[in-house]
């Protein structure tokens, strides 16, 4: 398994049956492929649908049915479509159980930066700021480092996505929970040691007394 598959599989274990879930474009989208048996989630896409599921095949694509990246998608029976106003009503109103987003940086306060690099990349925040401000749980799914440099920092130096402590960080090396006391290292990958994780992390980590090993399929 590559890093992305490990992350997606571990994030999927955080889902509960019946959850309303928004998956960001890219890595987070892969989470839908790893849901534990018996767990059915309702996937929302912020462009206006609840009940998204992957396309059966290219033949069933419809111009008017796409995910938030503009790619064709399909729906489960019992899906519902609505406009952007209603879509963000769910998100901002606290109706979304979980959002899974990518991250550029997370810091010791659990703050997330994932939408711009000043002077370099200004794509716009899209729905990210509403998702981080409004979802019940915010899970950041990202590789532990970028080109060898830590992404989990003492303090974010990129512009924040929201002033809100996110719920969980899942990387290919570790599961880390931001708390009022700091970043708690909850699980490590079977491939690494606690010291490996610490070495790849700029922020201080509090090692949980009951630290476990990420359960991953072969």
């Amino acid at each position, binding site marked *: 398994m590559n890093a992305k598959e490990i992350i997606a599989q571990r994030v999927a274990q955080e889902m509960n049956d019946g959850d309303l879930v928004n998956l960001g474009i890219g890595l987070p989208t892969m989470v839908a492929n790893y849901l534990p048996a018996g767990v059915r989630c309702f996937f929302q*896409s*912020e*462009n*206006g*649908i609840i009940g998204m599921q992957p396309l059966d095949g290219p033949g069933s694509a*419809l*111009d*008017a*049915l*796409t995910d*938030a*990246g*503009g790619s064709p998608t399909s*729906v489960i029976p019992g899906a519902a*479509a*609505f*406009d*952007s*106003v209603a*879509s*963000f009503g769910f*998100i*901002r109103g606290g109706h979304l159980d979980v959002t899974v987003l990518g991250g550029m940086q997370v810091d010791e306060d659990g703050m997330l930066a994932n939408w711009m690099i000043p002077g370099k*990349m*200004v*794509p*716009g*925040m*899209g*729905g*990210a*700021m*509403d998702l981080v*401000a*409004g979802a019940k749980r915010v899970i950041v799914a990202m590789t532990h480092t970028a080109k060898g440099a830590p992404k989990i920092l003492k303090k974010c130096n990129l*512009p*924040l*996505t*929201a*002033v809100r402590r996110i719920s969980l960080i899942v990387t290919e090396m570790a599961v880390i929970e931001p708390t009022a006391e700091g970043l708690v290292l909850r699980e490590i990958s079977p491939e690494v040691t606690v010291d490996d994780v610490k070495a790849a992390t700029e922020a201080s980590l509090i090692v949980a007394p009951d630290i476990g090993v990420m359960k991953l399929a072969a």
Partner: protein
Amino acid sequence: MSKVSSLSKAVEEIPDGASIMIGGFMGVGSPLKLIDELIRQGKHDLTIIANDTAKPGFAIGKLIDAKAVSRLVASHIGLNPETQKQMIAGEIEVELVPQGTLAERIRAGGTGLGGVLTKTGVGTVVAEGKQTIDVDGDTYLLEKPLIAQFALIYAWRADHFGNLQYELTARNFNPPMAMAAGTVIAEAGEIVPVGVIPPDQVETVSVIVDTLVGRED
């Protein structure tokens, strides 16, 4: 009381320099014929309010390619490098707005509300220069209403009065935009006789639609 017009006549009433809301999300649900006609008629110096600018060569991306846009209010331009290029070159003034806030600001403009009180953006660069309001101990950003001179809408189906229906994720920003503009021009995939669309399935009500253009114009 039919509102059906030719494509060229519908777009002729839009002056250079106009402010225009355009429905769609990455081009899905955008009024593609109206956009093409804006370019054919050489409209320029436009202010566009839209979720995004799609990608080069498609939907609103074509207006960017044609350098028809001088000001843009959007939530995301990451998939259109040409927009980013013109922004960095100072050719387009871009205001980036969180997507949910953009939707609510348009809704506020169309429904007579004085603004939007949202937690989205509080404490971030989005809050710079904006008023915050405390309500029962929580802090909200005051985001101002958005309106435009024109809204260009894409509907799956219309009747001749201008009642509109949308399809799946091609709905997105079209319904709130139709409420928030002085003149609403809707491009419809199909135009049916009045009475065909049942009252419970009308999503944008005829009284706010000014002009209808058929897809096969």
